[in-house]
């Protein structure tokens, strides 16, 4: 299915990909029920072939919205401004994304600064009379204050409901200022999963920033990522390639030249799916159709495909052989040190598939894991990107594999099923419960930490570090009470209420 760039509103993940947020079973089952295998749900719960059975229940804990993902992407473009067209509450996110922006800049050796987000601060009367005047004022303020190279606009639940003509204002202000003014439609209610917010940002960038008449740069590779440390440059140097990191911490020029690259890769298909497929569809920039670069199997296949597309096969083989030799001795030591340990991954979808592979490379048992959502297919629709099948085929099944949208009350039972020694997380909300059960968490703030050959070593070392934290968590666990009722804690089935 072709991505539609004619309209300023992105199609949600559930509409495009059939995304689900609640499911329980074996990884192999989820993989075979997903679109890549072209099988529909056995119980016939959907007409669309790509629809998976999804559970739904009465109890839900706070999730995350698409607008937050727009803040953490469009809000982190270094020479742009993001306007949050909303009441002041949506602006709360400025705090966390500022901290992440500052620490991300520091990690990349870029000048540390506050981010540039402006709230239109809508009031009760604006709900009645509309907020576009305030939107235009804030756009003018953004220009006067920073002379940015682009201005993004994030919509909100409130402006979506009152029906502000954000697209009209954006067009008008673009004419007035002569810079791209890009509406990003990301009302929280419009998608059940926040990853639609990634797509909303990437949709706007593809429509209004990327150069339409690209001059190809044969050694440039787009890396769709977040704030992670620069692990791609040393790797790409070996192949004579250059890195173009987007969207976070990028400049407008980095975004504009996306269409000129020789290929697009990412660290997580969940994040990169839309942009990579869009670049291929609109500008012929090939997306690397391979598993993600985690573990030997994934990294080998990923490097070989990147090398094939960029015609650097020889350098790649030399590099692969050298890296295998380099990391193996320490990997052997780590395997001994981690022998018998049980891990549990609880992160975003495609990323989790990669991390489980790395744990298995380290000899760690992974009997259970959860992902926040599941995309039965990615935008490329290419089976070579089927990360879940890649995991199952190369590293074996995960018996207790759950899709749970950051629902902590379910997480309790999931941990009881497999009793892991540690968990791996990125998003907030689950590690506090694990901690109160005496289980330490490895928070991967640097999303590149476990990537590639070195990533296996990195993750192994980090797990050793956090296993030592067990003392803290066990002490805490013996002194506190959980907020859940005994009845709930005694249930064997974490999905009891949603089946």
């Amino acid at each position, binding site marked *: 299915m072709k991505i539609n760039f004619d309209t300023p509103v992105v199609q949600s993940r559930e509409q495009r990909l059939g995304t689900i947020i609640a499911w329980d079973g074996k990884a192999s089952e989820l993989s075979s029920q997903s679109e890549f295998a072209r099988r529909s749900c056995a119980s016939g719960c959907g007409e669309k072939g790509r629809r998976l059975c999804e559970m739904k*229940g*009465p*109890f*839900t*804990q*706070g*999730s*995350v*919205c698409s607008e*937050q993902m727009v803040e953490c992407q469009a809000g982190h473009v270094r020479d742009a401004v993001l306007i949050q067209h909303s*009441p*002041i*509450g*949506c*602006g*709360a*996110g400025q*705090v*966390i994304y*500022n901290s992440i922006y500052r620490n991300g800049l520091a990690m990349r050796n870029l000048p540390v600064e506050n981010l540039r987000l*402006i*709230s*239109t*601060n809508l009031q009760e009367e*604006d*709900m009645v009379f509309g907020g576009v005047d305030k939107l235009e*004022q*804030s756009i*003018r*303020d953004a*220009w*006067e*204050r920073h002379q940015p*190279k682009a201005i993004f606009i994030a919509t909100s*639940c*409130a402006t979506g*409901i*009152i029906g502000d003509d954000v697209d009209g204002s954006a067009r008008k202000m673009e004419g*007035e*200022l*002569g810079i*791209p003014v890009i509406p990003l439609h990301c009302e929280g*209610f*419009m998608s*059940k999963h926040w990853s639609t917010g990634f797509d909303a940002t990437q949709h706007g960038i*593809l*429509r209004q920033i990327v*150069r*339409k008449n690209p001059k190809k740069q044969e050694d440039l590779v787009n890396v769709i990522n977040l704030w992670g440390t620069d692990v791609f440059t040393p790797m790409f140097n070996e192949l004579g390639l250059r890195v173009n990191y987007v969207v976070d911490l990028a400049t407008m020029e980095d975004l*504009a030249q996306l269409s000129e690259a020789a290929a697009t890769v990412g660290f997580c298909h969940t994040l990169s799916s839309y942009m990579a497929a869009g670049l291929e569809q609109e500008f012929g920039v090939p997306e690397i159709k391979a598993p993600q670069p985690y573990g030997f199997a994934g990294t080998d296949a990923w490097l070989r495909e990147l090398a094939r597309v960029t015609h650097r096969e020889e350098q790649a083989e030399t590099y692969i052989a050298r890296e295998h030799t380099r990391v193996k001795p320490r990997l052997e030591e780590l395997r001994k040190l981690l022998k018998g340990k049980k891990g549990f991954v609880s992160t975003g979808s495609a990323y989790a598939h990669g991390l489980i592979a790395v744990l298995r490379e380290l000899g760690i048992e992974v009997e259970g894991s959860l992902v926040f959502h599941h995309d039965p297919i990615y935008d490329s629709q290419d089976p070579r990107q089927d990360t879940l099948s890649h995991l199952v085929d190369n590293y074996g099944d995960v018996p207790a594999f759950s899709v749970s949208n950051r629902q*902590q009350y379910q997480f309790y039972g999931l941990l009881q099923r497999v009793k892991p020694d540690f968990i791996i997380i990125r998003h*907030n*909300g*689950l590690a*506090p*419960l694990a901690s109160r059960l005496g289980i330490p968490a490895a928070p991967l703030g640097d999303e590149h930490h476990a990537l590639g050959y070195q990533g296996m070593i990195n993750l192994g070392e980090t797990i050793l570090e956090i296993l030592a934290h067990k003392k803290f968590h066990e002490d805490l666990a013996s002194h506190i*009470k959980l907020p859940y*009722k*005994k009845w*709930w804690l005694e249930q064997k089935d974490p999905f009891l209420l949603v089946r």
Partner: protein
Amino acid sequence: MSEKEEKVTVPQIDKPARAKTNSIQQIRYVCSIGAMHSASAIPRVIPITHCGPGCADKQFMNLAFYNGFQGGGYGGGAVVPSTNQSENEVVFGGEDRLRELIGSSLKILDADLFVVVTGCISDLLGDDVGAVVREFQKQDVAVVFAETGGFRGNNFTGHELVTRGIIDQYVGDYDGPRTPGTVNVWSLLPYHNTFWRGDLTEIKRVLEGAGLEVNILFGPESRGVSEWKNIPKAQFNLVLSPWLGLKTAQHLEKKYGQPFLHLPVIPIGARETSAFLRAVVAFAGIDPVKAEEFIISEEGTYYNYLENFSDFYSEYWWGLPAKFVVVGDSAYNLALTKFLVNQLGIIPGKQIITENPPDEYREAIRAQYRNIAEDVSTDVEFEEDSYRIHQLIRQADFGQKPPIIFGTTWERDLAKEMKSAMIEVGFPTSYEVVLSRSYIGYRGALTLLEKIYTTAVGASA
């Protein structure tokens, strides 16, 4: 796809004077639903959020995580139930979904009281949240609600809505006797003020030391809902802040005939704290002997430390800040200004209040600054937009050396630019880890002195 020029051309737009607009860059408060934290600040009380999927997470991660890394505690943070409203509820209304969520929360979560707070979606679509909640109240379920849609106000006004919701719907009517010497304390905004836990603990400690029984109501020293049930039995209410809590106290006066004492300055240091205790004891009309003994004991300890500190303060060679800037909400702003001027003799440079206090309170707040000491008068400005705040500070004249800045994470870059020492004392404080630390009262003042001068000395070489 529309075609864009590669080169940016500077457009000719009129450059108006930088007048105040609706824009708020680098926020210093959040919206009303942020007051879900006023519920989870009460032991064993859990908020239920009826809102979009991101609202609860946003308020928590920003007010309680990247603000001193305070944490969600028992019933806050990630365990907060939320309807995570989707398109379906936007089209068909959210009452059924809310009913289902309250019902299932009762089954799963162990709380003494649930507080339903609402977001923009519900308030715009007009869900009858009251009707849904009353169905449960009729079955004696401990649940209350407050309509806190984001466009209705900020988390300060939301706090008073939540407080009032609990008083009217849970504490209820009372016409029995009142206990002399017992006081309800309405002071710092929980979680928004990064140091509220330690500070409320210190307030309770000194009031008890002076002979009062204290319902502190929020934080680790609160006895939870039983303490809230005792609100009407207290002799009086103490509003210890420039304005927050006044509406609650006025409501309690009307509802229970309970008088209130309003003291706008949160006391920092021996001088202020002793004066504060004497004022409260006089209002309560209790025997002052216990208070005076406590004051003597506390001042003895306090001035012993100050005596030792004076070696440093009087003969440290390498220069100390002479002027200060405070950017923050009125409670800490006024308290710090009072302490810095009166205890340390630092010269006020610029004071900016950032929480948008209702107009009706602003003149009284200004008057406090005009009379900050017997011989010192200063001014204060009200501004919420950090871009303008930073311009105001840049434009001020601080004389021969840069001022010390008491502010937030938003001032980190400004402080570097001005070569100022800087201490994060308010929302957002993303580069401090805060557990029980307090900057007020007798003990907190000493911690504050340590923090100020460690910052100044630590950056010297």
